[in-house]
């Protein structure tokens, strides 16, 4: 029930203790929670470098040429968060077709932030996942979430 900005301030203090990175069965690395999380709670911000979307293609090519995985999240038509080289643990959140979290762009005091919220109560130790929104591209990427409701492909 608290205002978003107040919840965000609280998140800044707590996110670090609440989550950690582990070897995930979904994909290489993943994010898990180190304490119980209530439904609707703010879990972590998808923090990174705020770049103009016209820089995305060049950066993607650059990361590919260096064999670095690309961690980007679109805020709106013009702006993207690039967490590949500057970011926090949220970059490791995996996709699931049956997620326990969801992502929302929230306006905090005039600035847009991508925040990951809990869809339901999540017990300590569970992997945190959300339903990625992928750009529509020609080649299909197989989904490895392994849930019964899996859509088999990421885009």
């Amino acid at each position, binding site marked *: 029930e608290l205002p978003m900005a107040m919840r965000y301030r609280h998140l800044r203090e707590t996110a670090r203790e609440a989550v950690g990175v582990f070897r995930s069965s979904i994909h290489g690395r993943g994010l898990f929670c180190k304490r119980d999380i209530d439904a609707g709670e703010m879990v972590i911000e998808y923090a990174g470098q705020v770049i*103009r*979307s*016209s820089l995305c293609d060049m950066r993607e090519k650059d990361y590919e040429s260096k064999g670095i995985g690309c961690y980007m999240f679109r805020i709106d038509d*013009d702006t993207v968060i690039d967490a590949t080289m500057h970011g926090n643990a949220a970059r490791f959140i995996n996709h699931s077709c049956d997620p326990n979290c969801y992502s929302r762009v929230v306006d905090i005091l005039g600035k847009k932030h991508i925040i990951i919220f809990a869809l339901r109560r999540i017990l300590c130790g569970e992997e945190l996942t959300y339903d990625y929104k992928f750009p529509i591209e020609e080649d299909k990427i197989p989904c490895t979430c392994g849930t019964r409701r899996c859509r088999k492909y990421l885009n």
Partner: protein
Amino acid sequence: AVLLALHDRAPQLRTADDRLAVTGDKGYCLIRATHGVSRGVWYWECTIDEQPEGSHTRIGWCQQLANLQAPLGYDKFGYSWRSRKGTVFHESRGKHYFEGGFGEGDVLGIMIDLPEKN
């Protein structure tokens, strides 16, 4: 009259009321004029009213498809002349063109020479 376009520009650019001046900041982007040409020799002039420390312009000609969120001369649809060092750009490749560059107070003339046919 040929003016700076309101609907053919990067939204973050600010055009003056008379649509004869444009101001931008924080990252290259593009504005086009309301009119284009398709053949013959054409020439347009502009004046650099202000150029604060560290800011630059890239001025020239481009086709309809030049990317509005990149500097003129970024892709194959545009040809530009940069105020810093007077370099000319096309497809993101800079070539030495004019010693020293241009800046505040300069009047620039930008000519294009197109074939009469096709």
